[in-house]
């Protein structure tokens, strides 16, 4: 039987690979189909599902990496996604270990709230505060679809990361 340390190494390696693959999928031109004018934010899905199984610090670190990659694919700087995913994943990591039980139903509730929160914040910072015209047209045509797709795509990542955590998680 593998030691906890070795288990943790392979588990974190698996998470890192997930992030790299999702970054590649997200940034490859014309690879993922657009549904109602938007694609899911896969890096957000991965970060949120890792956070519900891991403790605060690993959750925060993977949230931060996912956020930096999300920001990087959008602009040359670190910004909204890095900060929000770092905060959200840290809080979720804490809550999942101390306040709530990481069941599927709890996950659905938490995913809906966090995905909604992250994208509404994104909408606020990118569109409402700069006063972009037709922002509600964009919201209806793109952002709603992206929120729903991100939420839906979080489900398979939940099961994948649950499997990884069960196989490679700390020994009871």
């Amino acid at each position, binding site marked *: 039987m593998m030691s906890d340390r070795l288990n943790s190494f392979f588990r974190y390696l698996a998470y890192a690979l997930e992030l790299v693959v999702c970054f590649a999928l997200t940034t490859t031109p014309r690879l993922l189909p657009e549904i109602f004018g938007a694609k899911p*934010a896969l890096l957000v899905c991965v970060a949120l599902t890792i956070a519900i199984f891991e403790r605060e*610090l690993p959750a925060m670190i993977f949230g931060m990496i996912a956020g930096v990659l999300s920001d990087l*694919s*959008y602009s*040359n700087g*670190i910004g909204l996604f890095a900060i929000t995913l770092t905060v959200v994943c840290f809080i979720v990591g804490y809550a999942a270990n101390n306040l709530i039980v990481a069941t599927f139903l709890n996950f659905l509730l938490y995913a809906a709230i966090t995905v909604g929160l992250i994208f509404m914040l994104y909408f606020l910072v990118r569109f409402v505060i700069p006063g972009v*015209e037709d922002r509600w047209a964009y919201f209806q045509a793109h952002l709603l679809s992206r929120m729903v797709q991100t939420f839906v795509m979080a489900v398979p990542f939940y099961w994948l990361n649950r499997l990884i955590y069960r196989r490679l998680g700390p020994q009871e």
Partner: protein
Amino acid sequence: MKEFFQSPKIKIFLSVLLVLIMLSVFTRNVQNNVVSTSLNALTYGLSKVTAAASQDEKSDKSFDELKAENELLSQANRELRARLVDYYDVKEENTRLWKFYDLKKEHEDFSLIPARVLRRDSNDEFYSFTIDKGTSSAISAGDPVMGENGLIGWIAEADVYTAKVSTVLSPQTGIGAVDNATGDTGVLTGSAKYADRNRVIFSKLNSEHKVKEGDIITSSGSAGIYPKGLVLGEVKEIGYDTYDTSYYAVVEPYDDIKKVVDVAVICGYEGQGEILTGASE
């Protein structure tokens, strides 16, 4: 709970958050900074591979069409390989440059740098993208970016090996434009309402304008940022903005900005920056 707020974890969390906020401010305000360059260098290889993997998917063709095309190309490939070993490398480079040959011929003063789209992101609602050339190729922020058929954007940020291109679909874009047929002038800018239809707005038109469907809109070059005479698109409809009580025209660029793969950056031209220096006109 009290223990949690006094634990080392919360201190680490707050430290990381502080560093991220500082990096965020730093990377937003310092062009060509070491953080962005390092992060881009880390993902450059991966992006190069993924960009190459999708380079030929220019249209949604059926499997049979692609298969037939593939067979034809394979046959041509065999014949050409027999003639010259490095023919394809030369041909590919030639093809990329040829697309911009007419532009160069028309504007001999243009200093053109061909580049390829390295990556796009689903987070970006105005279809901006990253190209595989940066400041090491003499590209700098504010340079106009051409598609095969006209202006498609401008360099928003540039680091050593890559550069981010904001497209004309973005509301941040503002280009002095003129209707070639009627001489009406205005400002070409992106709009969230029309961006997903690959269209932009030709706004601030005079109340007695004569702009009509089918007119070709070009850059006026009035501020010395975009060269005069670059094709911007064709008028598709005319509208009236009740908010600022002015007329506007909806213009469709000739390139499909969502699918563009090869671009050329205008790094220099005669008269550049003579009137005003900035990111947009």
